[in-house]
């Protein structure tokens, strides 16, 4: 019995506690990201944004959450009920489990797996299933069109994300996220790999279905896309999943290109601030650009979106992989 407590129950409880320590602040961040989005866009458009619920509208996310909780969940009569219910749960779950591999500081990571970046890539490529399943199970033409658009879009941009990741891996020599950050101690990768940084960020916008690539939910053509038929908490799960994915892509950008938890300069005033705060700051910066882009750019047309993915990003990132490999081999900078 003692062996059971020390061998299984205690480690299990510790892991559950660690998961909660990651997920609870994450959900808080997701809730306040929705408020930040409205505030930032309002500021860009010279409006005030939500300012009634609580001081500066700070309680707005809570009010929104309570409202969604209290609404009725409607399952359309023609829908496929099982798939219809699973789809939002899948989307939300996938946006959370990716955080297991993200390092917040040296050694401050839930699962320090050897293939961390591949794990993130795999999880983010699964995000499309929630959307396809939702679109198909809704048994509605708008939802189905949105799901098809989304599937094609995410598969297209994943390819260039894969090449960007390969470029970074060539410079690091490891798939482990902690080692990717440590390899940037002297120079963050966004300086030598600047074009890849841009491609990764733009592909991240497309991968999370954010503006200007938000065709899957293009409200002017297909109402709201794949989640037209969803209501109440099932809708909220999609919404939360989308915002958690935004934070995840920002975290991936920070880890791959902006030096993760590392301070910009390794000297006194910068090193006083602990790593997780630097990391959060970098994520916040990326998120701000996400919102800024949304307030600035018009939506892409669908054929332009596909053109950008396949005819611009894919050849360019492929070229850059070859170039990076060539430079590394020619100069003998190949890691290990």
């Amino acid at each position, binding site marked *: 019995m003692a062996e059971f407590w020390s061998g299984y129950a205690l480690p299990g409880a510790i892991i559950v506690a660690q998961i909660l320590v990651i997920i609870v602040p994450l959900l808080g961040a997701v809730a306040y990201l929705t408020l930040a989005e409205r505030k930032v866009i309002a500021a860009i458009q010279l409006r005030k944004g939500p300012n009634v619920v609580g001081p500066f509208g700070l309680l707005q996310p809570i009010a929104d959450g309570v409202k969604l909780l209290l609404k009725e969940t409607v399952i359309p009569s023609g829908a496929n009920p099982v798939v219809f219910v699973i789809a939002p749960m899948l989307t939300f779950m996938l946006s959370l489990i990716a955080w297991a591999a993200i390092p917040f500081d040296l050694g401050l990571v839930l699962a320090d*797996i050897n293939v961390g970046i591949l794990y993130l890539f*795999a999880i983010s490529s699964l995000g499309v299933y929630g959307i396809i399943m939702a679109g198909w199970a809704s048994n509605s033409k708008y939802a189905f069109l949105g799901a098809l658009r989304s599937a094609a879009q995410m598969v297209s941009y994943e390819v260039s994300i894969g090449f960007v990741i390969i470029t970074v891996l060539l410079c690091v020599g490891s798939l482990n996220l902690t080692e990717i950050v440590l390899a940037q101690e002297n120079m963050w990768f966004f300086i030598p790999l600047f074009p890849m940084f841009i491609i990764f960020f733009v592909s991240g916008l497309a991968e999370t279905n954010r503006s200007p690539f938000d065709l899957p939910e293009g409200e002017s053509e297909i109402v709201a896309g794949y989640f037209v038929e969803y209501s109440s908490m099932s809708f909220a799960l999609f919404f939360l999943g989308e915002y958690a994915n935004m934070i995840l892509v920002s975290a991936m950008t920070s880890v791959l290109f902006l030096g993760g938890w590392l301070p910009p300069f390794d000297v006194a005033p910068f090193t006083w601030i602990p790593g997780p705060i630097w990391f959060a700051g970098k994520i916040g910066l990326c998120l701000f650009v996400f919102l800024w882009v949304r307030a600035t750019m018009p939506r892409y047309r669908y054929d332009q979106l596909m053109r950008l993915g396949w005819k611009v990003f894919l050849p360019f990132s492929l070229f850059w992989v070859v170039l990076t490999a060539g430079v590394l081999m020619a100069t003998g900078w190949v890691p290990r």
Partner: protein
Amino acid sequence: MIIQALAFYLFAAVMVAAAAMVISARNPVHSVLFLILAFFNAAGLFVLMGAEFLAMILVVVYVGAVAVLFLFVVMMLDVDFAALRQGFLRYLPVGGAIGLILLAELVLVVGAWVASPEAAVGPIVPIPDPARVTNTHALGRILYTRYVFVFQGAGLVLLVAMIGAIVLTLRERVGVRRQVVADQIRRTRAESVELVDAPKRGGV
């Protein structure tokens, strides 16, 4: 150990159940979804064996890309379920024979490996110590040295398949006005705007 054993049986049981559902589900979309579940559990089994790279590649390639396209096609198809069921008994002998051959081959491979592990592993490069060399490095070392030509050959086969698919589906349509972004960017004010002094009541 007991946790690992439990995890193994969980993954294996769900995988076998999902595989059975793939061929018995009435709705083809459900079949594909069960196929994805089976892939997932296979990835879980790989992780349990310490083959983390293979597990992730399985998820990225099969679940993230191949099965998405599968699902895409199956959803768009207008499948007549009754017609699908009709030929079941006629095709049963052929399908059963293929299944039996596969089973026999698997038994041969696994049986030889169980009977004499040294004989099966002998001629191949020794397996590196997983504590010192990561999966990815070990695979890369063997794939790009010993099997480099086979690897390149596999790539070539895939390239041929890709070109074949393009050749089969490409159609040249006449009279389609495509957007040429370069032309649009190259346009200047001088060549696209003309100021005309129109006489009053005369028009241009």
